[in-house]
């Protein structure tokens, strides 16, 4: 497809990874003190910052208030310098609006919103550098930020992209692989119950391969969960120690 071979004969991808190998994830919680919760994540060259405010009273139009649960307000934004060509609008175009909507749905389903009627929770994510799997990185970052803010969740939300090309399933695809019109899955799931919160697929994939791809996606999300979970535990114990406890 389009000249570039996504997986070489030796079974390696363009950036040297094996098909089922994630990019390196580095993350940090509590990067800002002014926000109620914040987190920074790097998945390979994709870098995302997330902040969370709330739960607080409804800001802006009062009519948004929901009488039985919290209103989740999300904003997905990509810095103008984050892509190869300069982005004209950081947000508000059709794709960003779609991302914002997906974020909102994902977290409305996982935050225990019914605990905070008539209030609002803000989740803002900013993509600083985009190299594929932007949405997955945003979801992971937002999860960490929500945990940092102490907002009750059903479970971690772990997200990951999976591609399928030439009979091979590849996980956590980067930008170069994305541009090759390969079948692409973006999933966000609750790792413990193995339930999908968000599921998006584009391009073409034969039905016979579907189960294979989804199994791989589940595994990848669980791997992400391990990394996130360790980061959270490290962060908590660090804070615990800072408070003078040993």
């Amino acid at each position, binding site marked *: 497809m389009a000249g570039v071979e996504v997986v070489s004969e030796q079974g390696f991808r363009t950036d040297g990874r094996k098909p089922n190998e994630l990019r390196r994830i580095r993350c940090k919680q509590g990067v800002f003190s002014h926000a109620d919760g914040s987190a920074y994540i790097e998945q390979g060259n994709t870098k995302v910052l997330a902040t969370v405010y709330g739960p607080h009273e409804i800001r802006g139009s009062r009519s948004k208030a929901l009488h039985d649960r919290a209103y989740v307000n999300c904003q997905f934004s990509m810095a103008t310098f984050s892509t190869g060509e300069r982005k004209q609008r950081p947000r508000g175009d059709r794709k960003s609006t779609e991302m914002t909507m997906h974020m909102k*749905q994902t977290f409305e389903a996982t935050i225990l919103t019914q605990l905070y009627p008539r209030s609002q929770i803000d989740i803002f994510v900013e993509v600083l550098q985009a190299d594929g799997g932007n949405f997955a990185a945003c979801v992971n970052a937002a999860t960490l930020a929500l945990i940092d803010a102490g907002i009750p969740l059903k479970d971690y939300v772990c997200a990951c992209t999976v591609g399928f090309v030439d009979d091979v399933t590849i996980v956590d695809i980067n930008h170069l692989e994305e541009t090759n*019109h390969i079948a692409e899955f973006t999933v966000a799931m*609750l790792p413990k119950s193995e339930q999908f919160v968000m599921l998006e*697929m584009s391009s073409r994939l034969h039905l016979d391969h579907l*189960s294979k791809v989804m199994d791989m996606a589940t595994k990848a999300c669980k791997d992400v969960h391990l990394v996130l979970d360790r980061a959270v535990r490290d962060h908590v114990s660090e804070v615990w120690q800072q408070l003078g406890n040993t």
Partner: protein
Amino acid sequence: MKDHPLSNCEEKFVLAAIAENRRFDGRGVYIYRPIVILYGHDRGCCHVQIGCTRVLAQVSCEVIIPKQTRPNEGVLHMNVELSPMACPSFEAGKQSDYGVEVNRALERLLRDSLCIDLESLCIMSGEKVWQIRVDVHVLNHDGNLIDCSSIAAIAALSHFRRPDVTVSGEEVTIHPLDEKDAVPLSVNHIPLSVTFAFFDQGRTLLVDPTDQEERVMDGKMVVGINKHRELCMLHVSGKMLVLQDQVVRCVNIAAARVGEITDLIKDTLEKDNAARKSGKEFGFAKCLADVILGVDDLLKHYVDSMSVDTTSVGQTAKTVVDADGNRVQMEVDNAETGNVSIKVPGTGKMSTNTEGGAVTWCEGEESDSDVILLDKNDSTSSEVSSKQVSAVVELSDSEEESVLMTSQDLERTELSKSRAIETRENRGGRCRGKSFGGRNRGKRGRGNGQRYF
């Protein structure tokens, strides 16, 4: 506009009915409402009806310069219009979140799955390609917009013919339709979407939800798939959680449904083509007439071509026109003797009182300075304004006497008014450079950086 609010008893009832596997229209859970596909008179025009949901799609084409990143590919542009016609809560002219969702779903289903061969739309690499635009107008929203729109869009694309093009060297000729037959687009496959509504934490699911069902559902899954069992799109929305086996189950049901719809599209396309070839009638009007003649529907009415009796029209028109004709002609001929005075070259004034004598009691004689305000010479205008400062007249307390002001006074107030207009413009601190005011035509009247202080 606001839509009707959903009452608690409705919500409870609809959920209870679904739990019993009962739908208001008596359908089974995996059954679609009846689908009607009609094609318009124009090529690329398709109207699809699923139950009461109605969508109109129109395909058009245009020659554009390709994107730099893809110089050999044409462009497929999708535009979904949700107007208040379909549902009172939709707003015209502004794309809502829901509009974006439908639009993106169609983009991913049709464009990202490469259902149209974009490379065949290239006329001259890097310079000229076809842009195919699909406008999808939602006419009535009774649930399941995405499925209805996807059928309309792909059927319209298959129905469309673009003008033929010949390229010889640098020369590109686009043949009009009467010169050379138009060519169809090369459609690689027919991707269609099947929407599932989820209820009761995913324990119940049904196909083709109506608006009533959509309002109470937990969420929905849209499966884009073609006849060759290739998954083209997957989209889950709403706050719900799904398990892998549910996904697989939905996809398999969708694979079964999509074959029937594909056959329906192909069948209707063939019928329309046959009608066009054999010179039979086609288009919406014909379909409406067919329905009317077939079924006795009280809401439809039809009359055949009617003749209007217009024998006396010519004569009556002549009487009306000629009634005053002579007098008008005389006045037109006399127009040149009218009262035109030229004060300065390039400026003239006409006092027009052709009927009756000139009225003088309320008329201020125009002075030259009044028009100089906009003269080329900047030096004169500064002169004028200094003159005006002394000529401000207090008008606030004037009572009936103001009617009796002398013509000179009136002229002064006139000047003070125009002065006031000028100062009002300046007071804003921001000057709107008129688009013809500078040497180069300013593209925008406002805010091009000049400031007056």
